[in-house]
């Protein structure tokens, strides 16, 4: 090992770097959420809260229906992720493991979709949703979110599907699987990290999205978290401690959820795979 470090030491340092890089703003928000606004504007700044308070959390829960926002976000993000991953997996399979004409063209079209700034598609998209009568329903966000993440999910999964040896699929088909059966029993389990990555990307994209959520859902009880959190903000004032508390409430459960999901489900799948 370089620098004369033991293997355990290297692993520890690596973990610390990754965690520190990811955690520092989150830790900063966490500390801020425990401070009062008075402490926040003081110069020189304080790092640890002088008199930690949970008041901001109490306000975050009472000032806005944040649990409802969270539920909405959860429904929208998980259903759009499921839809997106399913549709993208089928497409990725077709594009990588079947002999299709115009494969590159289809890939290019998919990529091109991702290249249009959402902002300039807003007005027509709103019209579409109104014509379909979907405004203020979960579908008004589920459908566009699934589409917006489709290019990246398809490509991610395609890049994984490509590397699976054809013999494995053939073997499964000899065992009596149909092609689609082989997709679900062989290809997807073998590409678990890719499928999981695609799912995270789709989920987080949906969880974070602001502009569509602001426009398609104008009833308070249909708002999602990213829009809901901005409602704590003032026209002029930006109450950081309160918003920090709301952000912590918003991101912590989702991260824990994803981390657990990864450990249990994907970890299991990968180990069961035919590898190495």
């Amino acid at each position: 090992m370089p620098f004369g470090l033991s293997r355990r030491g290297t692993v520890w340092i690596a973990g610390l770097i990754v965690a520190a890089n990811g955690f520092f703003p989150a830790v900063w928000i966490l500390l801020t959420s425990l401070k009062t606004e008075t402490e926040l504007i003081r110069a020189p700044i304080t790092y640890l809260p002088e008199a930690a308070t949970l008041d901001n959390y109490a306000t975050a829960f009472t000032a806005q229906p944040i649990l409802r926002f969270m539920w909405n976000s959860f429904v929208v993000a998980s259903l759009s992720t499921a839809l997106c991953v399913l549709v993208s997996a089928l497409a990725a399979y077709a594009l990588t493991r079947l002999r299709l004409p115009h494969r590159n063209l289809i890939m290019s079209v998919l990529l091109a979709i991702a290249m249009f700034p959402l902002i300039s598609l807003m007005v027509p998209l709103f019209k579409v949703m109104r014509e379909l009568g979907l405004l203020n329903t979960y579908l008004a966000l589920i459908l566009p979110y699934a589409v917006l993440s489709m290019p990246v999910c398809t490509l991610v999964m395609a890049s994984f599907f490509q590397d699976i040896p054809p013999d494995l699929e053939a073997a499964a088909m000899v065992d009596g699987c149909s092609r689609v059966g082989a997709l679900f029993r062989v290809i997807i389990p073998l590409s678990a990290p890719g499928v999981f990555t695609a799912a995270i990307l789709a989920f987080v994209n949906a969880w974070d999205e602001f502009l569509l959520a602001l426009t398609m859902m104008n009833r308070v009880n249909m708002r999602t978290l990213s829009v809901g959190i901005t409602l704590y903000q003032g026209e002029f004032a930006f109450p950081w401690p309160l918003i920090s508390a709301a952000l912590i409430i918003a991101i912590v459960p989702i991260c824990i959820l994803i981390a657990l999901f990864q450990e249990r489900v994907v970890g299991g799948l990968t180990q069961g795979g035919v590898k190495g």
Partner: protein
Amino acid sequence: MKTWKILLAAALSTAFAANAMAQQTTLRIFTGGQQRPDVMRKIADEYQKRNPSVKVEVEVGGATSEAQQQYLSTVLTSKDSALDVVLIDVIRPAQWAAQGWAEPLDAYLGADRQKVMGQYLKAYVDANTVGGKVISLPYFADAQFLYYRKDLLEKYKRPVPKTWDEMMETAKVIMDGEKNPSLQGFSTAGAPIEGTVCTYLVPLWGMGSEITKGGKLNLDTPQARQPFQLYGRMKQAGVLPKNIAEIPTDRIRIDMQAGNLIFGMSWGYVWNRLENDADSKVKGKIGVARLPHDQGGQSATCIGGWQVAVSAFSKNKAEAVKLVRYLSSPEVSEMQAVMASHLPVFPSVYKDPDVLKANPWFADALPVVESARARPVSHQYPQVSDAIRSNMNAYLAGTKTTDTALADMKSRLQPIFR
């Protein structure tokens, strides 16, 4: 499949519910999260009590004026009929008129027009009338004030400054005397935001000049350079914060509240925060005055505040107009003043004893609000605002000189005011 069934059931049940209440009119008001939707709800409840056939729903949009406009632009460009009454920023009526989003109110006001419009503060009549048509009615007023540290001025035996030079001198004296390194002299909005437009306009107006004259651009005057030079002098004297080009509106309130600012130019909301916030270090130490002006000029200020408009796509325009007239009545102005400390749009309400009991400072506020002026009225106001704020900001950041900032401002405004 299940989702579809639930949706279908929901759609059917709302259809039946709507049918059952067919004789009742439902009006939807759109308001920002900041214009006290809770107070709007109480006002709407009062209205429903008096008009049992009307149900008023309050829809709360994004917190900032910008976020609200993003949403409204999408909804109204699609000619959506979901909204009946919309709360709009004072800078927007001209744009709303040009886009055809607001139902002009003249026909509905009829013979009442003179009487109704005559009661408001003059600046609000101007702001809500576009091309001779009444586009919206004022809901509450706002203006920029000079907030100052009464206690420090008394300590150093200085009068409330009338001119910018007096203010700078007073600030210098106090800063030198207090020897507190975090104490700043004067602060105003300097970031590239809407408030920075007023940072430029206030000294310009104070010199008796304007951006336009008879519809034509009027920036080839010596007065047009004045605002840049004024802030340049302040910066040199060390009176402005070093990071003035980063200062957003609320920073002024925060610094004032923490006792780190002698003079601040900001909106009406600041007073209540300084007097009522538990953590305010300046309770009872704050005074409010007209903004200073240059030698030989006179005090000016920007108007702010919010208006109520009837959506041109509303399906209940007649009922919506009735609601708008109620929302823009002295009675509601008084309710807002007492419940939310919103500045009234009627001069008469400033003298109401209940209002003054809740907000003693309104007595000082009235002359300031009366001297307030509307920002340039143009259906392309967002472009006008952008041209002014970005160049003022660049000057304050030191990336442009008076000459380049003014020249760039002119070249961007030229196509708008031909």
